[in-house]
């Protein structure tokens, strides 16, 4: 429960009328933001609302085009990230900003390592100080460990230690829980409480409403790079907050549908991989939405990618429409009607640098071309058809996908696959990091695809989404199928229990 807000003091940091433009985009338009000592301020807004941009302005990575930042009432300008940390502002950024080739201590202290009398880095002191920080957050690894050898969650702990290594008065957390599992999220909440108790001002960015209402004292809402409103969390409810964010009420109910299941489309028999997963068996019916739930790192993406031909399983077979098919590459998968919308949109999704229409037609070139020669008119026709079906927002089909917002890039990737007229579409975390408005659109769309006879596999780490959308759910744990659930078994507790193997581990309190 949020502590009742202490009587209002003066803000430590206050941003006023900050504007930041990029070529062709105004990311921030005269926004304001105040952070108070000993309080958690949640910054909410849709994708592309300018939250991360605000963080980067506050940490000196970007220089604003206009407006003032005041610290304790004194206007200040951050020429570079060091100036911001000197002023006592530190951040856990949305992206992992660490160095695989350096050790843990160096990652924590790069840029402000302790020095000896000769001006050289004092390695012993650096490791000592790093150990103190790691102990503080309960991190279970050595300061000498190479970062590359750590798992994703531990890396996140390093990022947190790094943020704490600066003696800061302001701590910024940009979607810190997106990559963490239950256990670490709980530890993070504890940490936030500790920091609060130390009187630090905390800026907390998240798309998850449950956690905002759990740990924040205040909120600030941005929409399309503009300030919409702020206030005390205690004074607002979820629906009102959503309305402020999106500018309209959003139906948070998952679309209802009556599944119309057909024959078996896909049968996976005994898929094994030397290190990533083992013994995967399941079937998928026409028109079905099959959910895959698991904790981060349960191996779902790895398995989906092997189904899509990226990595090769060491054993196992895959039957499509009852016939055994060998899938050695994504090209084979596409030819067999299996397509995959990846989790990592920036790297694996759209081909940034190519125009929208070329992205959409890339896997369908065989159809739009004539004996290997491109037919541009055909391509534009196909691309427009699917772009319009997905209500893509773009200036022209010739525009570089890189200039689109994340949500629209996601649409291009989906359009690309629908244009191949697939049988099975795998959506890996389709709504991860997507704001509440677009999320509903994605859900609606999935329902529509299924009703048209397409089989959908949805990988998701969000329990409500998994339960709300799936006809059936497979839970994965440590690379194996832990359970297959449907009907009345589809309850949050069951999912969590199978995913985290609660039967053998001490039961953890649910939030």
């Amino acid at each position, binding site marked *: 429960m949020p502590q009742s807000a202490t009587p209002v003091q003066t803000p430590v940091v206050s941003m006023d009328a900050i504007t930041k433009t990029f070529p062709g985009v105004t990311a921030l338009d005269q926004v304001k933001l105040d952070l108070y000592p000993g309080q958690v301020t949640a910054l909410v807004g849709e994708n592309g609302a300018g939250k991360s941009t605000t963080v980067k302005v506050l*940490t000196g990575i970007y220089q604003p085009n206009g407006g003032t930042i005041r610290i304790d009432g004194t206007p200040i300008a951050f020429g570079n990230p060091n100036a911001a940390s000197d002023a006592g502002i530190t951040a856990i950024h949305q992206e992992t900003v*660490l*160095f695989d080739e*350096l050790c843990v201590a160096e990652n924590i202290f790069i840029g402000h390592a302790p020095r000896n009398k000769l001006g*050289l880095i004092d390695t012993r002191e650096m490791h000592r100080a790093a150990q103190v920080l790691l102990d503080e957050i309960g991190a279970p690894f050595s300061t000498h460990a190479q970062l590359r050898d750590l798992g994703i969650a531990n890396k996140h702990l390093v990022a947190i230690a790094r943020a704490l290594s600066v003696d800061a008065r302001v701590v910024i957390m940009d979607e810190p829980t997106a990559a963490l599992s239950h256990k670490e999220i709980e530890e993070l909440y504890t940490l936030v409480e500790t920091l609060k108790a130390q009187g630090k001002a905390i800026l907390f960015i998240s798309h998850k409403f449950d956690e905002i209402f759990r740990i924040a004292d205040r909120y600030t809402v941005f929409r399309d790079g503009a300030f919409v409103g702020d206030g005390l969390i205690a004074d607002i409810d979820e629906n009102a907050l959503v309305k402020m964010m999106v500018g309209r009420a959003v139906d948070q109910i998952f679309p209802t549908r009556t599944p119309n299941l057909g024959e078996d489309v896909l049968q996976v028999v005994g898929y094994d991989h030397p*290190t990533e997963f083992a013994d995967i068996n399941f079937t998928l019916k026409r028109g079905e939405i099959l959910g895959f739930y698991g904790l981060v790192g349960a191996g779902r993406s790895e398995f989906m990618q092997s189904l899509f031909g990226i990595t090769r399983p060491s054993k196992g077979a895959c039957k499509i429409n009852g016939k055994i098919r060998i899938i050695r590459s994504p090209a084979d998968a596409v030819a067999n009607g299996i397509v995959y919308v990846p989790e990592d949109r920036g790297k694996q999704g759209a081909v940034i640098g190519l125009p929208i229409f070329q992205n959409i037609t890339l896997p369908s070139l065989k159809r739009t071309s004539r004996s290997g020669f491109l037919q541009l008119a055909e391509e534009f026709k196909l691309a427009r058809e699917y772009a319009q079906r997905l209500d893509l927002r773009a200036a022209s089909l010739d525009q570089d996908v890189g200039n689109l917002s994340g949500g629209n890039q996601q649409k291009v990737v989906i359009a690309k696959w629908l244009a191949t007229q697939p049988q099975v579409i795998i959506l890996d975390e389709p709504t991860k990091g997507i704001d509440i408005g677009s999320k509903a659109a994605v859900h609606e769309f999935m329902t529509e695809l299924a009703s048209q006879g397409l089989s959908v596999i949805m990988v998701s780490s969000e329990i409500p989404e998994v339960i709300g959308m799936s006809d059936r759910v497979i839970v994965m744990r440590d690379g*194996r199928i832990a359970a297959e659930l449907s009907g009345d078994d589809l309850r949050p507790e069951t999912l969590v229990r199978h995913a985290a193997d609660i039967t053998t581990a001490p039961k953890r309190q649910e939030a």
Partner: protein
Amino acid sequence: MLSRLFPARETILASAIMLLLVIVASRFHGFVAPSNLANVFNDTAPLIILALGQTVVILTRCIDLSVAANLALTGMATAMINVALPGLPIPVIIAIAVMLGAIMGAINGVLVWKLAIPPIVVTLGTMTIFRGIIFLISDGKWVNSHEMSAAFTGFPRAAFLGLPVLSWTAIATVIIFAIMMARTPLGRSIFAVGGNPHAAVYTGINVGKTQFFAFVISGALAGLTGYLWVARYAVAYVDIAGGFELEVVAACVIGGISIAGGAGSVGGAVLGAIFLGVVKNALPVVNISPFWQLAISGSAILIAVAFNARAGRAKGRIILKTTEANS
């Protein structure tokens, strides 16, 4: 845990060099005589110095193809200065060489930093430009040993504690680099910039500026080597050290410096250079026709890079508990 059991890349390379020495020694004992090894080291010294500069550049995800041209231009300039002003003391000559080299490095660095032109394009361009300038300033003429002052040509070969100054310069460079890379903020920034330029920005490291400094360092070392080279071989002309830039890059690659930046060590680069030096010096001794040299160093590069890639390949996350237990 697995990586601890396997010897580090450097150990393997060092063993390869030892093996090479043993093979050569079995056919010709004199090769491993300390005096001859000292000769081999001295002969490899310029390559070691340049490889260290190149290492810094490659670590920041750049490449410097202009080092050999820089070396030649500085060498010619110092030789001409020596001819014009034979009385100029050697420390001044060295200072000029380092300065000139650093300026050329800075030109590369500025183009990469401020104009964001890809390093390979920049240094491909400056490589030909620097060579051309040598021709312009020298009018294509050679500076021969009899025109140089005795002090000028004498410096790199002056013996000190049994080794020539040239060797000592290489040793000093290695020590300075080992300290710089491990213990100074610049050294760590160089690793950081190459390892993850995006993250470097977030930690307040200026990527372009770090790359700039890497080019300046590489240039300064090329300048220093320029003087040493010209003085040692007692001749300066347009084409000295022609194609040497690729040998320098090869030394780095054999030494395990990742061309993708961010990974590698000073020790690796030094061993890579020594490996090439030993091969080059051993061939004539064991009576293999010098015509084999090129093919051998090419194969060494291929083997080294294939090996490094295997050693460095991500082993994959171990999700499956059973697999973890088995391995």
